[in-house]
Each structure stands twice: as C-alpha cells, then as structure tokens.
C-alpha cells in the first residue's frame, strides 16, 4: 500500500532530492543515531590526535601500578600522582591511553581496507556491468568464488602463510572484501546501463569512461556509503578476531583485539582489562551499524517520508 499511496498522491517526495537540511533535521529527531554520530566523531578525532588526547604513553610500563581498577591514582614514573581513569593493564600501562591508541590501529586497518576494497570492487563491478561479455564473466566468477568461502577463513589462512601485521591485514581484507562492492556496483550499473540518461549521454558522444564516472557512479554513492559503513563495522570485528588468534596485529601495538586477548589471562582478577576494549569495539560497531541503517532508510524513497516527518 505504501507504494500506491506514494505514487498516486505525492510524486513530489519521490523526485525530491534530499538536502543537507533534511538530513540534519532527521538526525536530530533520532537521538540514538545522533549520539552515534557524535561518538564516532569524537573517537576518530581522538584516534587522529592520540598523542595529544591520551593522558599517558600507551607503551611505557609501570610495574608499580599494574592492574589498577578504574579511577585509581598511582605514582607515575616521573614521581607525580596520576589518575588512571579506566585503570591500568598487567604492565601498569594506562587503559584509557591504550584504548585511544588502540582505536587508531583498529580504525586505521578498517578504514584503509574499506577504502582499498571499495575502490577496487566498485571499479571492477562498474566495468563488469557496463561492458558485459567476458569481462563480466571473469569478474562475477571470482565474486561467486569469494562469496562461497567465508572471508574470515581465507583471511586466517592467508595470514598464517604470509604472517600478520598491519599491512598484511589491510591487503587481506581488501582481497576478500572487494567482492561485496563489485556485486553491488555491477547490479546498479546493469540497471542504469539501459536508462535514458545513459543512452542520451552515449548519443551525444560521451566516452565510456565519462559515462561510467559522470553518469553511473554518482547514482550508486548512497548504497555504496551504506555498504562501506557496514563493512567498517565488520572489519573492526574481524581485526579483533584475528588479532585475538595471533594472526593479526602484533604486540606491543595497542589494538583493541590484542587488548582483549591480553586481558583474557587476567579475566578473573581484572575485569576492566577485558571489558573495556570489548565495550569500545561494541560501541564503535553499534554506532556504525545504527548510522548505516538510518542512512539507508533516509535514502530509500519509499521509506524516506516516514523518517523526515
């Protein structure tokens, strides 16, 4: 029924492009999403400016202040009294500082991987959908093959062969995740290829590259953004899993996954060592998922009006 009422009564909303003001208005009306946006903004800022934001050095141990619960004071290495807002880990390193630097590692891996796989997958998907033929066959066969085997399993195995670390992880994530963008981009390209505006562009002699870049690509920005947001969340989780198993980032690099892994040994005595990094991941991925979900609804012409009301 939604379809019928929308089409028969109000074409205006269907065509109306959505402005920044609409988005901000909708955002204010959805407090949970607003909180998520603020949280992620703060998180990204503190990850970028970790050296300034973090109260202490995340790597220098202080054996006299080991495993302090949150809100503890301890004498630092320079002899001054220091507040450990979120406690310390087994080596007396400040949890809050480690979480901030951990955010940098975790988000960096996820964001760069998503960027690389997104660009790669979108290009291949658009090209496959636009040209068709053997190019499409090859690309889609590869997509099917990668889709059939779980990404985490491939990542685990390849990291076992080539070893962990930041760069290898990004490469692996890009290798296994480009397929989701390729599938989406190809689908949209196929639906756009025969539309009038693409035909028109072709008729006036626009080059293939220009049609793909100027006419097809802009039409898939919203769904790609939604997908990329979901993928960031997925990769933050994957990084944590692989680092936990010892196939991901390498200590003493503070990553959230490694912090949980280390905290497991002291699980019974120092709950905060394992709880806090897990919560950090949870809040980050939950925020990303909430935003993606909301953005998808706002961008959906059928659902949009409900969210703008």
């Amino acid at each position, binding site marked *: *029924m*939604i379809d*019928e*009422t929308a*089409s*028969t*009564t*109000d*074409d*205006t*909303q269907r065509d109306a492009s959505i402005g920044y003001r609409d988005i901000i208005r909708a955002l204010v009306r959805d407090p949970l999403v607003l909180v998520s946006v603020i949280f992620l903004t703060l998180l990204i800022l503190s990850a970028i400016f970790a050296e300034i934001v973090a109260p202490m050095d995340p790597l220098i141990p202080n054996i006299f202040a080991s495993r302090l619960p949150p809100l503890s004071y301890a004498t630092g290495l320079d002899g001054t009294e220091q507040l450990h807002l979120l406690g310390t880990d087994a080596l007396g390193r400040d949890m809050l500082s480690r979480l901030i630097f951990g955010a940098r590692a975790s988000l960096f891996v996820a964001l760069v991987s998503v960027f690389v796989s997104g660009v790669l997958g979108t290009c291949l998907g658009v090209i496959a959908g636009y040209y068709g033929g053997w190019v499409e066959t090859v690309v889609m066969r590869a997509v099917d093959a990668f889709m059939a085997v779980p990404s985490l399993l491939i990542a685990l195995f390849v990291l076992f062969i080539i070893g962990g670390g930041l760069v290898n992880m990004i490469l692996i994530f890009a290798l296994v995740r480009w397929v989701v963008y390729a599938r989406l981009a190809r689908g949209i390209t196929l639906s756009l290829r025969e539309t009038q505006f693409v035909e028109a562009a072709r008729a006036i002699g626009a080059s293939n590259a220009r049609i793909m870049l100027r006419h097809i690509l802009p039409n898939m920005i919203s769904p790609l953004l939604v997908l990329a947001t979901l993928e960031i969340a997925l990769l933050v989780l994957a990084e944590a899993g692989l680092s936990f198993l010892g196939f991901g980032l390498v200590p003493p690099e503070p990553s959230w996954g490694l912090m949980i892994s280390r905290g497991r040994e002291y699980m019974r005595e120092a709950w905060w060592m394992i709880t806090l990094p897990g919560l950090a991941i949870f809040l980050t991925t939950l925020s990303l998922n909430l935003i993606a979900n909301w953005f998808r609804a706002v961008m959906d012409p059928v659902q949009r*009006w409900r969210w*703008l*009301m």
Partner: protein
Amino acid sequence: MAVVDVKADMQSDQPVLDVRDLKVTFQTPRGHVHAVNGVSFHVEKGEALGILGESGSGKSVSVGAIMGLLESPPARIEGQVNYRDTELISAPASVTRSIHGDRIAMIYQDAITSLNPSLTIGNQIGELFKVHRPNMGRREIQAKSIELLEAVGIQPARERVNSYPHEFSGGMNQRIMIALGIALSPEILIADEPTTALDVTVQAQIMRLLGDLRGQIDMALILITHDIGLVAENTDRLMVMYGGGPVETGPTDAIIERPAHPYTIGLLNSIPHDDMKGKKLIAISGSPPKLNEMPKGCVFAPRCAMAKDMCRKEIPVMTRIAPDHSSACHFAQEVVDG
C-alpha cells in the same frame, strides 16, 4: 473544492453504492496532501460508471478508500461510502471484510504483480471461497474454481488451475484477476485501469469479457481509467476527475457529445476523432497540479486556455447544465455552447 450532489440524478430505487463527500488526506513531511477533495457519486444496480482522470487526479485513491486499502496513518479518510445500508468508512473491519471481495470486488492494473507469485491460481481462487463461503467443501471449491477459469477463457482449466501466475501471459493473468473478481458474483466490480498494461488486441478481448460477464451476473462496473476511448465504449455514466475532485459528471454520451469542462475537451482533443471536426481545439499544456501545491482558485486554471481572472481566485462549484449533466467550471454554459 465543490461538493457535487449527484443525488438529485438518482433514479427511483436505492443505489448499490453511494459515496458522499469523500475526502482523503495524506500526512507527509511537507504538510498535508489532499489527494481526494470531496468526491460524491453513486452506482446503480447493474450500471457502468466511468471515472476518468490522469494519474494524480485522485481516482485510484478514491477507490482505495472505498476498498479499505489505504493505510491510516498516513491516510485520513472523511465522508461516507454507503454500500446499501452499510457505511464502510466507519464500519469495523469484520464487517467490511465480508463485503470486500464478496459484494464489492476489484481488479487491478498490473495483474502479474497483483497475484501472489508463490501460490497457484487455484489456491488464490479457492482462498476466496474458503474465507467468504466457509461452508463450501474442498471438492466444491475445486469445481467452482475450474468453472470460473473456464468462464474467463482459460483453457484447459482443469490443468491450468494448478499453475503459477508466472506461467501465464499478461492478458491471461488479467483474466485470472477477473475470475478472482467475479468469483462470488459481486454486485459491484471496480476495475482500476484493467487494460493499461495490455496490448491493444488483448485490451478489446478483456473488455468484451467484462461486458459478457456483467450481462450474466447483473454486476455494476466502476471503470477507472485515463483512456477516454475506453469509457466511451464501456460505460453509461461518467465522472471526470482532476486534481483530487470531479470536474464534470453526467451520462457518458452527453459528456462526449457536449463536454462542459475545458479539461474534458482537452482530453477529447487528445485523441483524433471524426466527430470533433469543426470544434475549437483547446490543447492541455503543462502538467497536473502537485497535490500539496494546489492553485488558489480553479485547480485547472493554470492549464486552461480559457482561464480568466475569476478562475484564479474563486473555486468553481458544480453547476447543472442539463438535468443530469454538471460541470465545475465558472463558464460551463459558454463551454457547452462553444
């Protein structure tokens, strides 16, 4: 918007369906949209009423309200829809459910999407009997379903009853829709653009089938379309709608012979027609109004070649130009006189 009182045109016996001052408003982010703005009409037993209008004229929303198909919110429905002694807008769902599909049935524009893709057509026809005639046995339902498919020209019905919609052509699916519509011998069949999605030859077949069936079960027809040729050939009376309300009502022949609203003339001129020779040509330029940006005076004024200052200020009311022929134009008489 004018409220049309077609009641005066009423014949001696009570109409089967009597719609009075129907208004449908949709709540949207950008304010309220008046999709239907005071529509009144009635349907006599066995007659064929045409509702003619472009998309956005409010014709489909009107029947949506009659059939209880509008989701509320966002829709707000006011006015009355009387089926014999039952007022359908205020009646509880249990009451309207027993009327919809049984006494008032509807067939839809796009048959293939209006049939459930994963149920056989036999299942879908049988369901109607199961729900509305709970006393019927399984065998009886099966026999009746096959009989219905035969009646709408699907052969061999005994085998095809177990087929799925995707196994039929568009025209065949429309026949199945019709079978669903007439299954319980309704008093009124509402057909919303029943032939728009079909080839011209198939269109004629479908309309002929509908005509034949109406003769057999004495069923009134409400034919909703944008195609003036279709209503000309298949209806007794006509209501022309524009911008959410009626602009002209009357016997179909009278309206086509002597249109009394510039919009109707525009529609008539949009198809080449021998009878129109010598008539003044008034082409409709522009596009239908956006329902949330209604013009102040007459809704048609912005597109009307005859519009005067008055048309942009005052909303015209339905005025009678013949005993049962009315037009919502300030200059109705002048339009008729040409």
